[in-house]
């Protein structure tokens, strides 16, 4: 581990997995939703459901949904901030067989009736993992700038996306492709050495007819 990971992270206490990790998870879920959160149900599982109060996990998750960072002391006040910003939330406990012990299922609802379900877990030491978006199993940590594609499983999507990334000078650090079946829904998680800019993103969105949606996680840049 790098020295600054040993002496760090800088965070609001008391727990790297139950507080700092929960803030990151809230942020990842918010980025998946992709617009300001107005209404959300949070289903806490395992140890998150059992010990959320003692570790401020509830306040930390909400802080992430509001876009706060793990070292922002105002995360203690996230319930008040949420009501000031008109964010309605409900906390639940749920049992889910085989779920990670520190995981949360978020269900977002937009004013236009759109919904999105996101499942993520806090893996320990503040690291997190996105595990499912709208029922689609995938794996993204947010530790790098990350591009997630939701597309139809057909030839050419992966080549089109990676060719544009190459043109944009963006190196791919890791790449995972998931599909529900041949020719069915698919997703690709690309961890990059830099984040795509707006112009590149617009070209990526239009690069192949099989592409349905793109998601960009900016990575820990700027986070201490």
């Amino acid at each position, binding site marked *: *581990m*790098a*020295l*600054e990971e*040993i*002496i*760090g*992270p*800088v*965070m*609001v*206490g*008391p*727990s*790297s997995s139950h*507080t*700092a990790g929960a803030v990151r998870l809230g942020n990842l879920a918010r980025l998946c939703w992709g617009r300001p959160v107005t209404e959300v149900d949070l289903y*806490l599982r395992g140890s998150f*459901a*059992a*010990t*959320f*109060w*003692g*570790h*401020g996990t509830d*306040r930390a998750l909400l802080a992430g949904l509001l876009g706060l960072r793990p*070292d922002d*002391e105002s*995360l*203690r006040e996230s319930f008040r901030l949420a009501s000031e910003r008109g964010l309605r939330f*409900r*906390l*639940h*406990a*749920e049992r889910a067989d085989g779920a990670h012990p520190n995981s949360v299922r978020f269900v977002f609802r937009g004013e236009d009736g759109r919904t999105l379900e996101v499942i993520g877990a806090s893996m*320990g*030491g*503040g690291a997190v993992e996105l595990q499912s978006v709208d029922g689609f199993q995938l794996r993204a940590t947010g530790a790098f700038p990350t591009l997630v594609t939701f597309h139809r499983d057909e030839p050419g999507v992966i080549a089109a996306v990676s060719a544009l990334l190459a043109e944009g000078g963006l190196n791919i650090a890791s790449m995972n492709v998931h599909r529900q079946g041949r020719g069915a829904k698919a997703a690709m998680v690309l961890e990059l050495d830099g984040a795509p800019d707006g112009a590149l993103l617009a070209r990526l969105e239009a690069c192949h007819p099989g592409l349905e949606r793109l998601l960009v996680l900016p990575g820990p840049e700027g986070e*201490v």
Partner: protein
Amino acid sequence: MRSFEAILARCREGLSLPEAVLALEEEERGIPAAEVRERMRRRLEDLEASVRGVEEHPARGRLVGGEAERMEAYLREGSPLSGPFTAQASALALKVATGNAAMRRIVAAPTAGSCGILPGVLVAYRRTFAPSEEELLAALVVAGAVGSVVAERATLAGAEGGCQAECGAAAAMAASALAVLRGGSPEDGVHAAALVLQSVLGLVCDPVAGLVEVPCVLRNGSLVGLAVLGADLALSGIRSLIPPDEVVDALGSVGRALPASLRETSRGGLAVTPTGAALARRLASEAPRLEG
């Protein structure tokens, strides 16, 4: 950093302990030494800020609060057996660890549960002995290297290795930092850590009610004393007969041998004493209920 031996090998080529660490960090991660130093300088500021924050606005947890102030009053009124430096470092460690419980901003060093020990020792040292910023920075770099060796050969997670891997590792890091600040040799710095680690082998993680408060906060306050003595023992020329890397390996195997009940699950140790269990029941009754 994979081993103390690799660090000491660089020192035998003529580098100081912090220089050897920076050279290895540059080789292993490709981050120039100047950049690592700059990042660690910011960490040093954050460590000091974690102390100032609780000094300006004292914190209380759900089970702890007031211990740091009590220790400070005792220090002001008398002459503590552990001496003014150690007692002050202990009071500051208690403060920061209490701040962590109260959701204040801290530096996990190496973890949130052990976040008081390193700032306690470094800030008390600065206030008592007025070292230069550069000297403090060198000490912090070495503390980070000790944590890195423990992380790579064993673990820094209480859930994997018990409290020996959290407060124990923090005390070892602080001991090395102190040995460097006192002008010790590279061997002194590395053995200070090893002498601390061999004294915490088997230390369990048994938080009452699952909170990072009892016994975590007081362990921060008391293991500061072990860090100071670990440094003094090594500076006197005493060596760990078991090589430091092997001590870390032993910590890892002891951690794996610990039953799950003693690794952050609150199912053993102080957490299940009659009083620990009663406190857990009381807090559970105060917690808001989640819809099922």
